[in-house]
């Protein structure tokens, strides 16, 4: 059906309006039809009873005219029908079937009906006429009959008005239906449209944090609710995916740096080993004992350094793996143990390591804590205690947001532009031959794994403070 096809293509709101208007139109048409049929019936009955009464009255009035066979009198009696517009014709018959008088409406032609039995009173209805036959009684005997025919002119007379009223109510109810449907549709359609728009927006922008507003408690509300819970799932998966992506990216960067290290930092001692091994042979052949010893020593040191590098790279790659269970621990105990282990080195350098009381507890694996402080304190001894009599202080406090521990030295300090760089892989500040450039990178990686951070506060000539911030322990 073409109409249905058109409707099918319309928007939901117009479908709704169309449906309401269609229903109202049907009801209104049916109503008009019923009203019309009722009116036809009422008018028909009215004409029938009026004509019957008229026939009786006129019959009674024309008894004397019949008795004296006075056509003039009879004509006068029938002439009173002039005011009855629906009466089309009337004939007064005498007892022997002769027409004594007749009445014809202005545009009516003479058409004398055939009468067989004048005694019988009868009312008949044809397609367009109501015909009444009524006997006229004289002294209890039928002396004649009155024949009268009427049409439903009244019905036609009011047809225009009825049509106008019908059309007016039809159009009026359609208009009201249209306006009300348009107004009501937002209660039914708007939540669906809102939902549809949200679907579209999410599809377009991939913003899974959006939520449908639940306006109603009906099926649409339930739909919005299940849509929201679906979004919840998608959002959490999206986040997890993002997280995994970032982790992967981070690992990739780390891998790149490792590749860089293999190509650069491990190659460097190899160049030394190759070069001086060759020179060693040459100097031996030349009998140059001093130079050959120097070359051999350099080969030895380069090999040792390679070993250290490999160990540290391995150490770094182990951070976050193979760790024990993280639990709240007191770092003081671990740092004391470390101090005992390092006592020889400390004494040799003439450094005093002071552990202040009141270090906050942190949630970590003991090995991780040990590694962090091992690296920070070794660095402090190596780079900040070139002369004896220096102090390294470990202290800390529990703040509102996090637990902080610091390692402070009295060394030469670190220029501001290197404060971030020193935590990167293989970035060394000192031209010192010792150290692989991995110690602080390992510390930074452990702190990142613990959900904390590490940074340095330092000014040249005023020593350095390495800060460790651990997340609060939640019970």
């Amino acid at each position, binding site marked *: 059906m073409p109409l249905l096809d058109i409707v099918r293509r319309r928007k939901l709101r117009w479908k709704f309006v169309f449906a309401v208007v269609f229903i109202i139109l049907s009801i209104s048409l049916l109503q008009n039809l019923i009203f019309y049929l009722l009116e036809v019936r009422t008018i028909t009955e009215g004409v029938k009873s009026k004509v019957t009464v008229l026939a009786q009255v006129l019959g009674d009035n024309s008894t004397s005219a019949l008795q004296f066979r006075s056509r003039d009198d009879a004509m006068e009696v029938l002439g009173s029908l002039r005011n009855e517009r629906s009466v089309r014709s009337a004939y007064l018959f005498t007892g022997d079937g002769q027409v004594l008088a007749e009445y014809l409406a202005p545009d009516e032609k003479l058409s004398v009906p055939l009468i067989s039995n004048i005694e019988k009173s009868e009312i008949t209805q044809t397609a367009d006429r109501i015909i009444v036959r009524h006997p006229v009684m004289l002294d209890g005997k039928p002396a004649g009959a009155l024949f009268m025919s009427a049409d439903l002119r009244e019905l036609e007379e009011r047809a225009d008005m009825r049509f106008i009223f019908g059309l007016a109510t039809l159009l009026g109810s359609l208009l009201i239906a249209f306006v009300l449907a348009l107004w009501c549709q937002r209660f039914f359609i708007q939540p669906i449209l809102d939902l549809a728009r949200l679907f579209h927006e999410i599809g377009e922008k991939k913003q899974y944090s959006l939520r449908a507003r639940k306006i109603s408690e009906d099926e649409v509300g339930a739909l919005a609710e299940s849509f929201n819970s679906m979004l919840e799932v998608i959002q959490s998966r999206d986040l997890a995916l993002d997280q995994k992506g970032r982790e992967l990216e981070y690992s990739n960067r780390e891998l790149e740096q490792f590749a860089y290290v293999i*190509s650069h930092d491990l190659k460097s001692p190899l160049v030394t080993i190759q070069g001086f091994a060759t020179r060693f042979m040459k100097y031996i052949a030349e009998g140059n004992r001093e130079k050959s010893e120097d070359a051999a020593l350099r080969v030895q040191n380069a090999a040792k350094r390679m070993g250290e590098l490999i160990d540290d790279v391995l150490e770094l790659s182990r951070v976050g793996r193979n760790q024990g269970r993280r639990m709240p621990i007191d770092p003081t105990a671990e740092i004391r143990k470390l101090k005992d282990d390092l006592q020889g080195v400390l004494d040799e350098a003439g450094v005093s390591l002071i552990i202040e009381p009141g270090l906050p507890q942190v949630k970590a694996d003991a090995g991780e804590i040990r590694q962090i402080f091992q690296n920070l304190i070794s660095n402090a001894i190596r780079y900040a205690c070139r002369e004896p009599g220096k102090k390294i202080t470990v202290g800390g406090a529990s703040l509102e947001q996090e637990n902080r521990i610091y390692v402070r030295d009295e060394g030469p300090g670190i220029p501001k532009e290197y404060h971030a760089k020193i935590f990167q892989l293989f970035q060394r500040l000192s031209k010192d031959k010792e150290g692989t450039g991995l110690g602080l990178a390992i510390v930074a990686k452990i702190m990142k794994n613990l959900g904390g951070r590490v940074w340095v506060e330092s000014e040249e000539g005023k020593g350095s403070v390495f800060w460790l911030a651990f997340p609060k322990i939640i019970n």
Partner: protein
Amino acid sequence: MLGRLADIMLIEDNDDHVELIRQTLEEKRVANSIVHFDNAEAALSYLNRSGGETTSIVLLDLNLPGMSGHDLLKVIKEDERLKSIPVVILTTSAGESDRVAAYKHYVNSYLIKPIDAGQFEKMVSDLGLYWGLWNKLEKDPN
């Protein structure tokens, strides 16, 4: 007339590599004297003081403590007085990003230290002979 040979400036934090280069140049009879720095900052202040007049070539390592070789290269090539000094990066890094960054800052040559001792010696001696001896700087007439 043969003037005094300008110096070869070597900026390298690995003492072993410095020694390898020094011994190689000596053996190949490269007569230029070697001015060595183990960090970029010291080298830069020397260049600033001398204006680069006595330097025939800068051999520059990339991975230095503190200021990196890239940083120093950038400073030299942006300095009106210093930018005509040839700078040769001498590094173990075969990383493409390092090479690209160095050429972006107008490095004159980018050389990767070969592991093989023979190749290393050949590279260093070629460098010394070419840049040190033949490629004497023609200073401005004034």
